[in-house]
């Protein structure tokens, strides 16, 4: 590469990721069906879609909690697709995850201080004598009082537990954090605190996020770029301004239209409610997977699969009608 790789090379590169699950009668559920993207340093990629679209499976494949059926994953240029469990250990230091259920993600028998110290011990990053100071520093970094170190998960609120999870994730100075619905279970006032905290950590540490959510407004606040998933595929992928203000795929438009807006004069607008529900990934519809629910579907959509292509600079859409 000619240009300065430090700035321009992606921290994570996913190419043609496929994940199929075998189900009964030898049939196959196509949970992820060919997904490619690049995650740049300091960037937040928002992954949005409804339940069953494959967004959590994608997160688990990217962090190698699930084996991909096909495709390649590169983290900082290293191909990690087929690394062994042992070879993955240093990679995991670089790529951490945060989950939706903050309390059950934590070992109920360990207190908050032990929980945050655990990754430091496993990866032997800090001498034993300095672990306590480092944990206290991490507590402050996520807005927790170091006095909370002796608390057990059941003695903390959901928001506090999620801060502990964030402290665990950032303790190893990762380049990537994959957050799977990390703020979805939190109350509005706590959700705002955690979203801001994740933003502050990003500007402080320069790390990248893959932020998975079903909430258009949340993804619109936190992301730089947004990928919209439907039935295992990206149907639209662009900057957040393009996705929110100039959505081109009918499914993205439907998601935006269905998202409630806390403004009664605005919400009384006439909106088109998309019909039906997400089809099964075991027997997806022919042609464009969205055609049975699409208000604009034509004959072509029923037979021919659309491909994800660039229709505006940096704006990818998979739709015959765009």
């Amino acid at each position, binding site marked *: 590469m000619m240009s300065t790789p430090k700035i321009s090379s992606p921290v994570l590169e996913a190419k043609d990721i496929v994940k199929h699950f075998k189900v009964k009668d030898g049939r196959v559920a196509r949970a992820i069906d060919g997904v490619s993207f690049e995650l740049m340093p300091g960037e937040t990629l928002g992954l949005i879609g409804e339940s069953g679209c494959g967004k959590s499976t994608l997160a688990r494949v990217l962090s190698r909690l699930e084996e991909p059926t096909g495709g390649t994953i590169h983290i900082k240029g290293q191909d990690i697709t087929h690394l062994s469990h042992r070879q993955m250990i240093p990679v995991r230091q670089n790529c951490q995850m945060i989950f939706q259920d903050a309390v059950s993600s934590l070992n109920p028998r360990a207190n908050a201080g032990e929980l945050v110290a655990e990754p430091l011990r496993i990866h032997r990053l800090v001498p034993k004598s300095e672990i306590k100071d480092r944990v206290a520093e991490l507590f402050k970094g996520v807005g927790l009082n170091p006095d909370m170190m002796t608390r057990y998960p059941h003695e903390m609120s959901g928001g506090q537990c999620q801060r502990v999870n964030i402290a665990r994730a950032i303790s190893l100075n990762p380049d990537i954090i994959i957050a799977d619905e990390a703020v979805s279970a939190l109350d*509005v006032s706590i959700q*705002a605190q955690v979203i801001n905290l994740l933003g502050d950590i990003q500007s402080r540490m320069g790390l990248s996020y893959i932020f998975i959510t079903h909430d258009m407004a949340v993804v619109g606040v936190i992301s730089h770029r947004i990928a919209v998933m439907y039935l295992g595929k990206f149907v639209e992928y662009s900057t957040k301004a393009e996705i929110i203000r100039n959505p081109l795929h009918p499914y993205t438009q439907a998601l935006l239209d269905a998202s409630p807006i*806390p403004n009664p004069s605005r919400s009384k607008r006439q909106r088109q409610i998309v019909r039906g529900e997400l089809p099964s990934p075991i027997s997806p519809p022919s042609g464009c997977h969205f055609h049975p629910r699409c208000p604009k579907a034509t004959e072509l959509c029923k037979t021919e699969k659309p491909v994800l292509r660039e229709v505006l600079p940096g704006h990818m859409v998979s739709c015959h009608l765009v």
Partner: protein
Amino acid sequence: MSDAMVQNSPETVQPVLSVRNLKVSFEGPKGRAVAVDNISFDVRPGEMLALVGESGCGKSTVALSLMKLLASPPAIIEGSVYVKGREIFNLSKEEISKVRGKEMAMIFQQPMTSLNPVLTIERQLTEGLMLHEGLTRKQARERARENLDLVGIPSANERLNQYPHQLSGGMRQRVMIAMAMSCKPSILIADEPTTALDVTTQAQILALMSGLQDEFGISTILITHDLGVVAETANRVAVMYAGRIVETATSNDLFSNPSHPYTRGLLGAVPRLDALLSGDDMPSRLREIPGNVPSAGPAVPGCPFAPRCDRVKDRCHTQRPTPVELAPGHIVSCWEYA
């Protein structure tokens, strides 16, 4: 103000449901925890009132106690509830079960766990009809089929013979609504009916509920944490915090002129698509409310929001704020206005 508006003013319409000084508490190891702290409100015919608040604010406890579904003991329930002018808290078990399902029905957040997994949809939909309306099984099945049509479930005959696990989440919630609607109640209590659903399904269910409200004049109490859902559907809103109603107003007034510091904080903290849709730059930070949502404990003497409030004064800690009517129907409990 026109004559028509005066005629429709709240004072002249008799509410279908009146709650007066409802107080629910639980005796625990650390003393008495107050879940609902002396609240009063009315629901008028055909309106949708939203009870909005964060987890632990007591909104679901209100719903359960209205339906007399809260086991007492351990719950200590005080106050009175009037359905069309008739007090129901003093009714016997037999009498209350005639009100429940017939006058007042409820739908819950988890349609899977609220439906009986080992009974067919038909059995679950016909039970109430046979009990309350004395229909035969055949008549009840016919009505159940009509009710499934009403809530937009295609091929109703087939669905009647199926079990809950054979339906999707959205379909199950439609069945719950069909069940609640089967005896045409005057009051529907919906506790987070769309929280477990995807946004496109949520939009379908909310449209269905609004349609039923218009068609049958049902009064609905919508319990939710989602201010967007409130703005989309409710006529009036009561904001709850730590067991109390801190602000009541019409939807339009509440969102255009939020007056309680907590309401203002909530509206500032919620990520807003409308803010992202227009303007020169897109916000990437949210306004925070500092501190945590309080957990249930003994009732505080002053304002429960005082520890998180940016306008807190001395007396907020010691004296309970008295409700003030800022505009007709817009009531706020905050010392800033008293």
